[in-house]
């Protein structure tokens, strides 16, 4: 290795970025070259001097000034991310609505709905309307949930996902047992 080759590697050497097969020839060169060794010492000195640069004192009032300037509410996510999040929320609500309608009679929910709504003179349309209103309320909740989920790390999100799946499985099992025990009559909406 000549001096030019050695000097091209000195910066990386000071940063300890060289692989052993690059560092060893350089170190052998430094052992016998006073000029390159001096250059390495200067570079090391420059780096430690730069690392020693101190940041100026900034008074506490600075933080107070920044906090006073903040808008009252944190601006909502905008742009593509915002559209995507709302798209996901709408899709989730729509899916929940459809799945709910499909499962309700099978899970005995039709009977429950009939018992509670019929005395009020309620109809299938009113039931649907109530479900739609519930879906809108759920959308608002899901929006908050989506905001929470997007702020999670991957590990936490994975844990949360497993918890969500587990809770759903437990709920489905409980409902199935309830249906088997009560054996409700299968009713259809009229």
């Amino acid at each position, binding site marked *: 290795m000549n001096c030019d080759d050695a000097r091209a590697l000195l910066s990386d050497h000071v940063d300890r970025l060289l692989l052993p097969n690059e560092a060893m020839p350089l170190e052998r060169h430094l052992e016998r070259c006073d000029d390159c060794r001096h250059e390495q010492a200067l570079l090391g000195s420059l780096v430690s001097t*730069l690392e020693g640069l101190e940041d100026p004192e*900034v008074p506490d009032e600075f933080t107070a000034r920044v906090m006073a300037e903040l808008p009252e509410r944190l601006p909502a996510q905008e742009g593509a991310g915002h559209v995507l999040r709302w798209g996901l929320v709408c899709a989730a609500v729509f899916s929940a609505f459809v799945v709910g309608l499909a499962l309700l009679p099978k899970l005995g929910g039709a009977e429950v709905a009939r018992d509670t709504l019929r005395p009020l003179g309620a109809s299938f349309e009113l039931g649907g309307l109530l479900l739609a209103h519930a879906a809108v309320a759920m959308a608002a909740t899901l929006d908050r949930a989506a905001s929470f989920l997007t702020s999670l790390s991957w590990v936490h999100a994975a844990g949360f996902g497993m918890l969500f799946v587990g809770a759903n499985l437990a709920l489905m099992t409980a409902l199935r047992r309830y249906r088997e025990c009560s054996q409700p009559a299968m009713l259809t909406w009229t």
Partner: protein
Amino acid sequence: MKPDPALAELPDEKVVRLVLRGREDLYAILVDRYRRRIVGHLMRYVGKRDDALDIAQEVFLKVYQNLARFDPSYRFSTWIYSIASNAAIDKLRRKKVPTTSLDQPISTDDGEIAREPVGPARTADEIVGAEDLMAEVESAIQRLPDQYRELILLRHPGGRSYDEIASITGLPLGTVKNRIFRARQRLRDDLGDLLPAGT
């Protein structure tokens, strides 16, 4: 009002999450944590403490306004330095601060003449104290071309990795390494014998 000291110990990303979940007051933790580093970083860009304080305030407001866009898979420090660096570059562009290299000759009606530093150059003997040396280093950084100064300031102080600097600037890793190498060479040439070679 100061936030709960236990909360002040939380990692940046957790504080961000809490702020996004409605604890806007906890943003003060992040401002407290980064204000010195960001003002120092900006001061070395723009040269004046007052300018650095003004830009830092804009940076913290911008960070807050875009907090919902923060990608938690990155480090918060990477993100805030990225915003601070861009703000400093914008400020320099708006002010059109001349940052011509000292190596570049001055064009005159009589042709080109070499630049000479204003005032007598200081020798190693004149620069005796650590504070003097630091002031010389700060001046040498100011004299670096923008593209080198940006990267050397992201590298030192703080020792950010080349990968992180590449993320902040959006430059390829090879370009980052090359520019930091060149910046160090320039600083070494500029500071010459002022640097203690024995450390």
